[in-house]
């Protein structure tokens, strides 16, 4: 599935200011989209901020109509704590998909919201222009 260690860092890029609330806090919805059961991240362990931005510019921005605003860093350990699975999906290099977000019954949808909130609480937000 993947060769990542629990402390490895995974980053989710933010291209839209819609992911920020009025106070500039990231909404938990950041950890959704892409596909119904999960979202997309890049393995960024050991990369400095500049290299991470370059990774986004080279492989992701070309598909986006908006510029990179920020990225949220979390770890493999946090993803696995809420029982989500990480699947390597290259190209582009370092790209992984997160799967396993439940969504069938209402209770499962509640669990999905809970997972999103947990991941947000365990993430660090890094702005590109700061």
């Amino acid at each position, binding site marked *: 599935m993947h060769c990542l260690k629990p402390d490895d860092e995974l980053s989710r890029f933010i291209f839209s200011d*819609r992911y920020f*609330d*009025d*106070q500039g*806090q990231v*909404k*938990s*919805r950041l950890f*959704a*989209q892409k596909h*119904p059961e999960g979202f997309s991240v890049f393995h960024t362990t050991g990369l400095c901020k500049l290299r991470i931005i370059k990774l986004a510019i080279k492989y992701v921005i070309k598909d986006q109509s908006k510029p990179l605003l920020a990225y949220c860093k979390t770890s493999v350990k946090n993803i696995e704590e809420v029982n989500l699975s990480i699947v390597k999906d290259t190209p582009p290099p370092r790209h992984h998909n997160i799967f396993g977000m439940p969504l069938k019954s*209402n*209770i499962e*949808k*509640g*669990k999905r*919201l*809970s997972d*999103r*909130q*947990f991941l*947000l*609480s*365990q993430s660090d937000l890094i702005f590109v222009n700061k």
Partner: protein
Amino acid sequence: MTLISEQWLNSQGAIQQSNVVSLSARKAERQSSSFSLGKKKIKLDELNRLRCVSQEEDIAIKEQSFIRAADFINKLPIQIEYPSLDFEDDGSISLEWQKSLNNNKTIITIVFDYDIVYSILKNNKPYAYGAKSYLEGDIISLINLIEENFGIINNALLKA
């Protein structure tokens, strides 16, 4: 006699003072109430704008979800902070309250699906999640839960 007069004067002074305080409080309440109604209107306008934003992403907002979200925002008492609004990939409207203190996040998210799906994170730990039907009693219990965590003290009233 002097003592009685002093007491009477003191009590009159206290009544006058209390009238001034109560007038100021009522004025502050009116100001705060109109401010809050203004904020409510802004939120409802924001909710309307989500329709356009969702179209850009090829997502159609579910009508029932939209109506319920608007109704819920209207039902929020003025002492509750207004949430951030968004839509899910299936077109349901979501509301989210968030605060962070010393890196400890508290988040409440509710999604207006057929029922209301909700989740609460307190101090970075999952606290509760589930679904409630869109009935008066359930809505009130949800609003109470939000008020417990995101109720704001009316500064204007405190100053008065």
